[in-house]
């Protein structure tokens, strides 16, 4: 019997004495936990993707929607409208211009933009340590700068910028005014410019960083400096068109605008929203490409279905989206001229853009018909602006013309909200449309996205700062 007892005790001791640490080391084949030089290409690509999702959206709805800043600001500023078929109340509320901190869809895009900021900063930090001369370092710095631009242009003053310490505990940031956000953006673009200038292949990135800088200066009301910087970007790369690429490979890589319009029938092009919105459809302008979705038989034809006008700026899910272009640089340059009183130069630059565009005007029926009929297309060049609307026009009309040109040229690029805010702040007026399609909407001055309620977990945060903090 003794042997049984001894055997049992030995077995117990054997189990107890074995070192469990080997088994307690988890296997992690699916993830990366340690960053090294081999991780840099992946981090770089990841940073590009994070910015793209935040800016132009994506189709990965299983991760929260990803309407992107382009899409959400588009329905907020009446570049698009939320369709009646859109079942997401949060988006319909933004469309109705009821923007509350608790809005889940707003929270989603704020999260995406924050993720992009942190991702690009972390990637930049890795580059700084592991490959400081890599051009990718400059590129992620540019994207990092653009995240601050989007925060400043679209979100109310009071956005904090926090960090996560190495142990995973937060280092909460203080709320910043819009001007402070712009200042950080400038610093980022300056750093990117320095890095890109040191690389012989860095011309495009250098031009993008300059254009980003010009955009910030414009936001700050430093028109002359903005114009000079934009001009320098044009000199560096006259054909500048920095694009974020999309793909039909995975839903995350979809063009977000396409996804929420053509893919999901949630958004559509809108005309004169609220009565005084811009005439994106009826202007029949070749810069605003759209089509009546019913022609394609996309929607149910009976009651309960909706009429949606599909945008054609991004006609497919893999259409790339242009973040920075020579076109935008020219518009900034032109605005600097306008502000400097050099009206002929301003008008000349706007007309030069029109003449050089090569765009043709296409006409579509605005009445939904069923079944689909052949689309009638009449082609003619984009006309020049007349003297009545430029050189002979009063100042207020010039401003209106200029911002209309920006609205049409930069349609669905996430600039309209910043422009409307600039109109109020820098031009003391605006084209902020009213709504009459939902009873509780009141046109007002709330033309910015409030920082989502989740930020209240930051003890330093106190919601939007006063309007005066915008600069």
């Amino acid at each position, binding site marked *: 019997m003794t042997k049984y007892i001894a055997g049992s005790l030995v077995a*117990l001791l054997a189990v107890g004495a074995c070192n469990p640490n080997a088994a307690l080391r988890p296997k992690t084949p699916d993830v990366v936990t340690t960053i090294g030089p081999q991780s840099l290409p992946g981090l770089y*690509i990841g940073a*590009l993707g994070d910015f793209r999702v935040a800016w132009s959206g994506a189709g990965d709805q299983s991760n929260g929607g990803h309407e992107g800043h382009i899409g959400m600001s588009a329905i907020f500023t009446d570049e698009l409208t939320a369709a009646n078929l859109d079942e997401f109340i949060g988006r319909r509320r933004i469309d109705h211009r009821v923007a509350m901190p608790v809005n889940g869809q707003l929270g*989603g895009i704020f999260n995406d933009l924050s993720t992009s900021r*942190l991702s690009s900063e972390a990637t930049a930090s890795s580059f700084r340590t592991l490959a400081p001369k890599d051009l990718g370092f400059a590129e992620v710095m540019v994207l990092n700068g653009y995240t601050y631009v989007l925060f400043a242009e679209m979100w109310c003053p009071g956005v904090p910028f926090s960090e996560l310490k190495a142990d995973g505990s937060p280092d909460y940031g203080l709320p910043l005014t819009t001007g402070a956000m712009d200042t950080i953006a400038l610093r980022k673009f300056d750093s990117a410019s320095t890095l890109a200038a040191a690389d012989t292949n860095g011309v495009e990135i250098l031009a993008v960083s300059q254009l980003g800088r010009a955009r910030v200066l414009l936001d700050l009301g430093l028109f002359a400096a903005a114009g000079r910087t934009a001009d320098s970007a044009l000199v560096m790369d006259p054909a500048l068109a920095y694009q974020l690429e999309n793909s039909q490979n995975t839903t995350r890589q979809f063009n977000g605008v396409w996804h929420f319009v053509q893919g999901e029938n949630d958004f559509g092009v809108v005309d004169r929203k609220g009565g005084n919105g811009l005439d994106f459809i009826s202007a029949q302008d070749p810069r605003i490409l759209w089509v009546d979705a019913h022609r*394609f038989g996309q929607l*149910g034809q009976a*009651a*309960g279905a909706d009429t949606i006008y599909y945008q054609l700026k991004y006609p497919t899910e893999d259409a790339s989206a242009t973040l920075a272009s020579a076109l935008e640089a020219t518009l900034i340059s032109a605005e600097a001229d306008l502000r400097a009183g050099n009206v002929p130069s301003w008008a000349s630059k706007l007309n030069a853009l029109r003449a050089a565009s090569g765009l043709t005007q296409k006409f579509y029926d605005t009445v939904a018909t069923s079944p689909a009929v052949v689309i009638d297309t009449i082609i003619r060049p984009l006309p020049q602006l007349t003297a009545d609307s430029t050189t002979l026009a009063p100042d207020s009309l010039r401003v209106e013309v200029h911002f209309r040109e920006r609205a049409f040229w930069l349609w669905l690029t996430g600039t309209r909200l910043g422009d409307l805010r600039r109109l109020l702040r820098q031009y003391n007026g605006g084209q902020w449309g009213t709504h009459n399609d939902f009873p509780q909407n009141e046109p007002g001055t709330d033309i910015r996205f409030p920082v989502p309620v989740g930020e209240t977990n930051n003890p330093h945060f106190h919601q939007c700062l006063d309007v005066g903090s915008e600069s």
Partner: protein
Amino acid sequence: MGSLPRVLALGAWLALGAPLVAQSPITLAANQGATNEPDALNRVIALRLEDVTLRDALRVLEERAGIAITYSSDALPAMPKVSLVVDSITVSDALRLLLHDTGVEPVVLAPNRVTLRLVEATGSSRAGRRSTQSGAVVGRVTNRATGDPIPAVQVVIVGTSRSGVTGSDGRYRIASLEAGTVQVRALRLGFQPQTRTITIADGVSDTVDLALTPSVVTLDQVLVNATGQQQRQRETGNVVSTITPDSVIQPAVANFSDLLNSRAPGVTIVQQSGTTGGASRIRIRGENSVSLNNDPLLVIDGVRVDNNTNSASASMYTGGQTVSRFDDLDPEEIDDVQILKGPAASALYGTAGANGVIVVTTKHGVPGRTKWYTHAEYGSVRNMTTYPPNYFIKGIGLDNNGAEIPGDTVPGCYLFSKDQPGGCDPIPSTLIAFNPMDAVPPFVAGYRESYGISAAGGRENLTYYLGADDYNEQGVYINNRARRTNLRANFAAQLSSDLNAAVNLGYLQSRIALPQNDNSLYGVIGLSLTGSPFNDACHGFYACVTPRTISQYKSESDVDRYTGSGSINFHPTAWFSGVATGGIDFGDRIDGNFLPASVLPGAQGAGLGRATDASYQLFTYTANLSGTFKFNLTSSLRSTTTFGTQFVEESRRGFLGGGAGIVPGTASLGGATTQFTATTSDSDIVTFGGLGSQEFAWRDEVFLTGALRADESSAFGKPTDLVWYPDFSASWVIGEESWFPRVPGVSSLRLRGAYGESGQRPGFLQAQTFYSPLAESKDGVTRGGLAVGGYGFANLKPEISREIEGGLDLGFFKDRITVTYTQYNRTTDDALILVPEAPSVCGGCGIFRNLGTVNNNGFELGLSGALIDTRPFRFDLSVSGSENNNKLEKLGLAAPAYFGLGANGSTQQFSAGHPVGVYYAVPYTYKDANHDGIIEPNEVTAGTNPVYLGGPFPKGEWTLAPNITFFGLIRVGSTFDRRYGSRALNFTEEFRCLSSGYCNGELNPHASLRSQAAVVGAVFYSTDYGYIENNAFWKWRELSVTLIAPRSWLRQLPISDLNIQLAERNVATWTHYTGFDPEINFSSTNSNYSTADFLTQPPVRYLTMRINMGF
């Protein structure tokens, strides 16, 4: 093997012809305290001796009787064990019973002094006795409540060692009895003992059938603790609820969740939907954890198994409902379910047992003839909810002064626009109400069927149980099915006198198809309720997607699951026993999701068609090893010491592939043209635990236990520091004390108390920041990238739950009526909060931190008994209930954390000082000031700040279960549930009003003022207040009728048992909640604290008939 036969077998160990006691007598210590009572041997005592050595038994007898027993150390063997469980027996009878067939007999030396001596070297006296015994007793023991036979009942002839044990058919036989009057007593744990007096005549077999009444107070019920060792209920200081499926009307339950529902106080099962195959939420004593799973641990036959109630949530795309692995269990093959309700009971389960433990023991064979059981069941499954129509009304336009504009007809006039400048006045005569479900009924005639057969039997050294069951249920949607096939083979072997082993093998094949509903654009309920009020070409269905169309959307989960366990019990000495248990639970799960091309509108997006295929292999390995040392420190004080180790590994391998642009006519991913998805999800979590416990038992009446468990785990992404979980328990069966006063009617009383700690860990890698791969295009080429997959806090540790409980078990009228009362208080410190970090910190990530404190306290009360028990009529009543106060004492965040649905933002929050997940909203009042039957915006007065409205889970729940039996042949049973003290969000109606705009409160002038005010509140005052409702309810959960075939009918047939059961489930609901059902929840994936109804299929009604036969 029964206990008394072991008494009879004692003689085999006696060394016949051993020296007489006079040569070397031993006087036991208890002798010193012997009383001077002259007639001590005639004193009546109670004895509860089970599986103890004869010497130990004699020590207890000395103690109880106050006598001294002396005998030679050579006269009695050490090894044999005896059992004797009697409520009243004389000391002399007890001695005779214990010494029967040992060749030793007591000799009285003095009134309080007995010596033992060998009687005959040849045993001839025993042979002589047998020659005078000629009668016999035969009979059958059944459950009085169900009429079913009870196996393994000890039937003893009181005052003798004669006994028998019932077989699987409940039959027994005791032969060789002397003629005369005897008492026949039946004993079985879980039942009240029953005694019958009969007169035996020479050469006659008398028949004595006994019907035992189940007893709730089961002090000697055997429990299996975390070490695999057996322990009696009386030894533990905590309450353990036991559910025996055989006592439940089987056709009233469809799955394991139904089996648990309303059967034990403090155990809450929330039926989240009427979706066939959908999961239920299981909570024990409230909610422990803010962010971690609150599901209890599941242990089957000693091994840990997958207890995921949200299985397949990420890869089935149903909109909300998911599959629960709990429901893989087949109630038919379960012997009993023991529920450890919290750390006070489950500390030895370590970093896993904080939410309680459900310990399942599957059926085993009983020695005897092979007993066959078979059943067949069939029934209907019906939708019982009336869905509301969509409304439309025209109005007369109003000018800016609120005056009607003649001839200005406004299509679609909201009620709240009445009298409003620029609004419209509804024209009641133009009201249209149309329900798309009337035009195209989406529901099918569901059914359920179940067939099963089992065989059990064996010999003393090898028993077996073999079972096969098939369950098939067609839900009320054509694409909603659940089929479950269970096979089981259990074997137990007595390998030697000190070694036995058991092997338990279970196989499950599950095929479940779930419909779209809840938070899905393509659910039938959503398509109807957010459709239009016109019977147009689309029959009013949203986006022209009809039920027939959407039924082509398939979400399926196929599981093949193998659960195997083996155990070895080793008893080499009287003072040491060892248990080794090992097993594996392996689930091979394949989830599929398929939407054909061109089914949904649009040539892009969903119109392309989509398919995903996900394959998971889930392994749970368990290995337990423990040793127990038992010593009698004195004649009254017993020590039991246990050491053990435990190893658990939970391993998961998963792959998900998906794509869109499916080739028409196929469901294959092979033709997918876009939206490719390919992800892997692998994880491994290992837990090592060591444990030790020390129990002291005083006279089998007072028990004090201390235990300690230590754990290390890899769950956080790295080995954690050692975590310690102590446990203390005290139990005092005070009613058995000799000095305890005899209170008329009170038959038993036990006081108990326990304290314990247990833990819970977060999921894989949650203490680490890591990057996950993704694809991204650059320069026209798809490249691999890395993005943060999760953030983690490095200094994470398990959250610790500490629980103290105390209570009493009372039996009345020989335990015919029993009462169990327990008060508990459980606090979870270092509660792991998934901190919804400020977006600026990490983009809206959640990071686990040990920040919070959660408290649950309350009481549980169980009352059960036969209030009337006459031969023609019997009335049993069971009342059980509990109240739980849940409170988030500390959150540790700068601001409340918001979550949940709501048109105006999240309606639930984690906020210190309130129940976890409390509802809140800006309140309002309303009054139809102008008495026009319409609530206008200015007739609603809203507050300024949100107020707390109540927690999401019931504070109280009570179950009333009456059963009436007529002549033992007809039994009618029912279960009523009452739950109260909670809130739910009727998001179905809110979403409908704010999304489609065709809802009752918005357009129907006959709508209640309350529903109109809710719309006004949501639209004009941005508050969800009107849709956060009190969801207290009464439910008539079950109704059943059982017809039992009289035995006289069966004598002509080769059938031993036959009964027919009719049962209805979800009979009726009474509630003020205005949604479809007060219990349902839209999403299993958000099931921790969400109680929102969002286009969810309410419970369906089951009407089932079942035939049970035994051969």
